[in-house]
């Protein structure tokens, strides 16, 4: 485990804005095929850390390594070129534009030459269908505007796009925040799907109940510093929730937490059922695909 080079690693990263210490001495890493959950309440420094990781802000101190090599990103483009793709809450999608056009916005495939070089609409459509199918969604119609998709579906388009354009590490900024329980389950399923395809996923959330079922590791942020990183075997869901809530308030919250935990087992069970069903589906598809190509 330890000799594997992480896809992405930060060592003792700090970020100051003037006199404000936004991040202090944060270390974390993510390997291929792992989901690292970054948890923290509002103001914990999650957003700042994402911005450092995605190249928006350079860190004030500390080292940032991609596949073992130190990097100094000066723009989100740099990060993207290094395979670090960030799917923001607002998704970077145009609601009135159809799915295939959104999928390729800014990176449109072309055919022809010179003044006749044109947007290969057909290829864009096919690739979108195909990539979405790999994520386990069959689109009804790639010519529908993205605005007609549900929140979870939009997230999946954004994730599929990042993966298609060569992301090795996927940073997901609160992808489940604005979603209902069922929709959130759908997105968690895509995260599992991305992990199964060998990506490193950094999943940012303030909801431990979304993080726990999917995460392999959990890094907790609080007021700009890290409580540390825990593997799933080291920490229980209850402990995770407790750490998020903060020790001293624990007593008052214990009742609520018990309630959370109860609803959670139900949701968790549903989720794992859904995951199993999905796995079987993928298996079938795989067999079918092989059959098809022969």
């Amino acid at each position, binding site marked *: 485990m330890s000799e594997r080079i992480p896809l992405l690693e930060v060592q003792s990263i700090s970020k100051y804005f003037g006199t404000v210490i936004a991040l202090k001495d944060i270390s974390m890493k993510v390997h291929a095929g792992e989901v690292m959950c970054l948890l923290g309440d509002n103001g914990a420094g999650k957003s700042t850390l994402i911005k450092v990781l995605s190249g928006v802000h350079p860190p004030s101190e500390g080292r940032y390594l991609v596949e073992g090599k130190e990097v100094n990103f000066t723009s989100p483009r740099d990060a993207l070129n290094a395979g670090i793709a960030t799917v923001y809450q*607002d998704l970077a999608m145009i609601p009135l534009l159809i799915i295939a056009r959104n999928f390729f916005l800014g990176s449109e495939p072309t055919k022809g030459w010179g003044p006749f070089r044109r947007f290969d609409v057909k290829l864009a459509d096919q690739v979108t269908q195909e990539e979405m199918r790999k994520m386990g969604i069959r689109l009804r119609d790639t010519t529908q505007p993205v605005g007609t998709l549900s929140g979870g579906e939009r997230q999946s388009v954004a994730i599929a796009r990042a993966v298609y354009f060569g992301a090795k590490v996927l940073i997901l900024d609160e992808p489940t925040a604005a979603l209902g329980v069922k929709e959130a389950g759908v997105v968690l399923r895509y995260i599992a799907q991305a992990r199964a395809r060998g990506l490193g996923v950094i999943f940012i959330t303030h909801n431990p109940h979304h993080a726990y079922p999917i995460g392999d590791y959990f890094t907790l942020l609080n007021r700009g510093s890290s409580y540390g990183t825990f593997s799933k075997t080291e920490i229980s869901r209850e402990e995770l929730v407790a750490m998020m809530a903060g020790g001293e308030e624990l007593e008052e919250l214990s009742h609520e937490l018990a309630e959370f935990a109860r609803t959670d087992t139900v949701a968790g069970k549903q989720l794992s059922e859904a995951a199993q069903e999905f796995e079987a589906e993928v298996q079938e598809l795989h067999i079918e695909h092989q059959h098809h190509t022969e």
Partner: protein
Amino acid sequence: MSTIQKTTPAPTPDERVARANPLRQFLVRPEMGAIAGAIAVWIFFAVVAGNNGFLTLRGTSSYLNVAADIGIVAVAVALLMIGGEFDLSIGSITGATGMIIAVLSTQFGWNIWASIAVAILFALLVGFINAYLVMRTNLPSFIVTLGSLYILRGLTIGVTTIITGRTQIGGLDAAPGFQSALTIFASNIQIGGANFSIELIWWLAIAALATWVLLRTRFGNWIFGVGGDVQAARNVGVPVRNVKIALFMTTALAACLIAIIQVLNLASTDALRGTGNEFIAIVAVVVGGTLLTGGYGSAIGSVFGALIYGMVNVGVIFAGVDANWYQVFLGLMLLAAVFLNGYVRKRAMEARR
């Protein structure tokens, strides 16, 4: 594909596919309202003014020629508005560039083609400055170009008066190169005794080119992107600034083309030429189904929007009504179109249910 559908049990396609009613899909295309509107307006005037010559070739050519004057600019404005911006300086650009051609050719004896080249460069410069100010200040283009509307119009009148002592200049037909320029920009094609201006060919060619750019090039996709959500477009690497600069320059160029056509057609110009065109062009574009908020619309729609304008403008005269009444029609058309567009967009964005 069919085998995959068979072996994939989970998301049942039926309930979802059933929603995609082909008629509805057809109706939510941005230009559909304008096409239906154009047919309705044509039928209206065919009934009301059919006996007075609206249906004759001569009648048809007269409203087509009027429509083309607005239509050429409207195509460019459609692209600009899909890209999320306005340009209110169009009419002033038409006035200024027309005057540049007239002054250079009549007062300084320039060849018409040389004057046209200078006018085009001037228009491109104005378009660039408009775009630069909008991008630099982050002010709404509505305000920025409202400023250039007045500055440019004032300059045109002022400078022309200083040089010539008048605000109207005639006698361009004596300038060298006039005949060849006239043939290309403003000749007439006689069909059955009616004069169809060559401007119509310019109009349709530009509309076809704009449609191709919009739907079949990367740049077209970027136009939709920057108009739909600037920040999102920027995040995925669309060169927002360049797209907008190109759009403003295109619009200015179209306004200049109108000036060239009109100056040659009349062999004269007026410092006030083009006044109000900016609003009529916006009406044509909005009637054509383009959203005021950007990100959605079509170039073809603007063609039908301009056609409606032409038919109303000329049809009112054929119907024997005082010509000033056309503005009432125009205003009503605009309001109807805005309501219709709002409805269409709502349908287009409707989540499945």
